[in-house]
């Protein structure tokens, strides 16, 4: 789960990292009032995405009127598909130098990775590609953690002058915040060295590990959940993974891999999938709810149901589906492919209750669904 800057920065503060004096506000009036308390400010759009500056979402204010006008201009903007609902009014810093720092989960080393670069304020992928010698990184043994000695070793060879010790302390605090909050990524870019030599985190990106939300419920309430369509929200509420797509062939399958593949096969046969909907894992008893969601997608013309039982048992999924069928009476053609644990029972249920026979494999079922959608589209056009 992503967090907006204003919701992420308090995590740094709690770990002993300095952040500018700031207020999160949702109206131009409140922005002017915040200016009165803070003084010369930066007004920053709060959206869970980067590149706000380029989109015009960051403005400078030297008076309360300027703060009001800046907030007026920024509030309601669309940045990378996100509507700006609030701005952060933040005191300006006297910046001498800017750095980049982050701690993230690394699948390569299967542990935390600490990164630091003297090229602050830049896109880190660019730094890594163009000036890799200015980017330092180190894998951490999560059991022993990351201390000031490890930080100094990481910084060795960079021209940091007297700031080395302060940066080492900062990195240790950043690592602590990463650990305490089950971060997937905790990034400060830029980290500013200000007049007097102190370090201030000017921006912060925090991504909370979705699998750890259950042990950080208060924190997660301040996050920005992914923007969902109405149908996707229904899926979320029912704990079924549903992603709405722009095609007309519905897909209902068990397991992430099989569901993705069913989409691929629909596309391979020239069709366009209407959705990703999987009822594998713990959701396999939820076929009933899932069928309703898939059928409610506007413009859906056919449906392929692809079950391959492993942990999820075909007869359990089929029972849910048939119950939903009785209630929902689908008007579109549905094409089945059934294999794996409980397949024989499921195939018998399908025959007994609906008089239908599954296709021999997913290619045949998907192709039939694509053809049916095409025929239906022709019918619509006529």
């Amino acid at each position, binding site marked *: 789960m992503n967090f907006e800057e204003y919701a992420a920065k308090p995590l740094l503060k709690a770990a002993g990292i300095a952040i500018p004096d700031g207020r999160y506000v949702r109206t131009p009036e409140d922005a002017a009032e915040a200016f009165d308390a803070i003084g010369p400010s930066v007004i920053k759009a709060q959206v869970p995405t980067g590149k706000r500056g380029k989109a015009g979402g960051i403005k400078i204010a030297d008076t309360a009127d300027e703060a009001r006008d800046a907030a007026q201009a920024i509030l309601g903007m669309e940045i990378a598909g996100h509507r700006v609902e609030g701005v952060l009014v933040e005191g300006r810093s006297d910046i001498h130098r800017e750095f980049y720092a982050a701690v993230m*989960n690394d*699948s390569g080393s*299967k*542990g*935390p990775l600490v990164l630091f670069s003297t090229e602050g304020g830049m896109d880190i*992928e660019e730094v890594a590609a163009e000036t890799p010698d200015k980017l330092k990184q180190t894998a951490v*043994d*999560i*059991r022993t953690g990351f201390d000031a000695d490890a930080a100094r070793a990481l910084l060795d060879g960079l021209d940091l002058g007297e700031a080395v010790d302060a940066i080492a302390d900062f990195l240790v605090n950043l690592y602590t915040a990463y*650990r305490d909050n*089950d971060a*997937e990524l905790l990034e400060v870019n830029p980290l500013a060295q200000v007049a007097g030599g102190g370090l201030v985190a000017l921006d912060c990106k925090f991504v909370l*590990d*979705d*699998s*750890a939300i*259950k*042990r950080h419920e208060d924190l997660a309430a301040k996050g920005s959940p992914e923007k969902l369509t109405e149908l996707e929200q229904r899926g979320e509420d029912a704990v079924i*993974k549903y*992603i709405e*797509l722009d095609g007309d062939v519905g897909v209902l*399958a*068990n*397991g*992430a*891999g*099989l*569901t*993705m*593949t069913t*989409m*691929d*096969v*629909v*596309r*391979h046969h020239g069709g366009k*999938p209407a959705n*990703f909907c*999987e009822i*594998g*894992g*713990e959701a396999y008893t939820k076929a009933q709810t899932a069928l309703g969601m898939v059928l409610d997608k506007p413009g859906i013309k056919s449906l392929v149901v692809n079950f*391959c*039982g*492993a*942990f*999820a048992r075909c007869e359990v999924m089929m029972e849910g589906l048939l119950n939903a069928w009785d209630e929902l009476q689908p008007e579109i053609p549905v094409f089945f492919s059934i*294999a*794996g*644990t409980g*397949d024989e029972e499921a195939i018998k249920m399908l025959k007994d209750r609906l008089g239908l026979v599954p296709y021999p*494999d*997913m*290619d045949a079922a998907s192709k039939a669904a694509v053809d049916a959608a095409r025929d239906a589209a022709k019918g619509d056009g006529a």
Partner: protein
Amino acid sequence: MIILRKEHRVLVQGITGKQGTFWTELMQAYGTNVVGGVNPKKAGTEHCGVPVFASAVDAMKEVEFDASILFIPPLGVKDAALDAIEAGAKNLCILTEHIPVQDVMYIMAARGAETHITGPNTAGSVTIGECFQGFMPAFNERIFKKGSVGVISRSGSLGTLMCQNIVSAGYGQSAFVGIGGDPIIGTTTRDALEALDGFEGTDAVVMVGEIGGTMEEEAAEYAATMSKPVIAFIAGGAAPKGKKMGHAGAIVMGDRGTYASKKQALEAAGVTVLATPSHVGDALKESL
């Protein structure tokens, strides 16, 4: 990685739960040598015909075991896995999905050179005709039949489907290895490929990958050195960018983890990349 054999002694952590019981009975019936289970609240009792212990460490003292399978809810996995590692298990199979990633990293750091881990978020593995672990329909002879094709899959459901296609094309498998759908897993595609390359009775390997990460690209480097034919299918070619496709590991970020990158790396290594899973029979016919 270790491919589970019938002589391996297996501990089941979480044996008394609903899923633990259901699958332990099936594993025993198929041939898995289950020697004990763990549930701290039911230590001293017997379940599925084997003794239940308070911990894996206790179990090791009473009945030695080689491998442990965890039927444990997400927030309990870290402690259970550390217990099994401390006990000296050579192999851990972690089935659970949605374990906090920092817990997974802790487990990975804690395993010594002697402990191999499969998963998390795997459906398990089958050594055909010998034993299985996890949630696999090992009994279904239309899916698993003794033969010479080794199969690797990030996804349980898709791996199962691929196995069924292999059998219906007239072939069979030596072993199926489910490696799991998480971004951080103990046994990578490459690890599994190396293990199957050296596994007796294996003449070809079918590798079922997914978009996201770089495991297939790394496996391709090893495939290029193999004399056995390798056939691959990569799921997610039709998936939109930036969305987690059900598996936490299946997400394309920028140019990393794309279908195109994986297909290119595999084909450059001489691997046959299938358009759909139904083509596996034809590809095996050509290469065997």
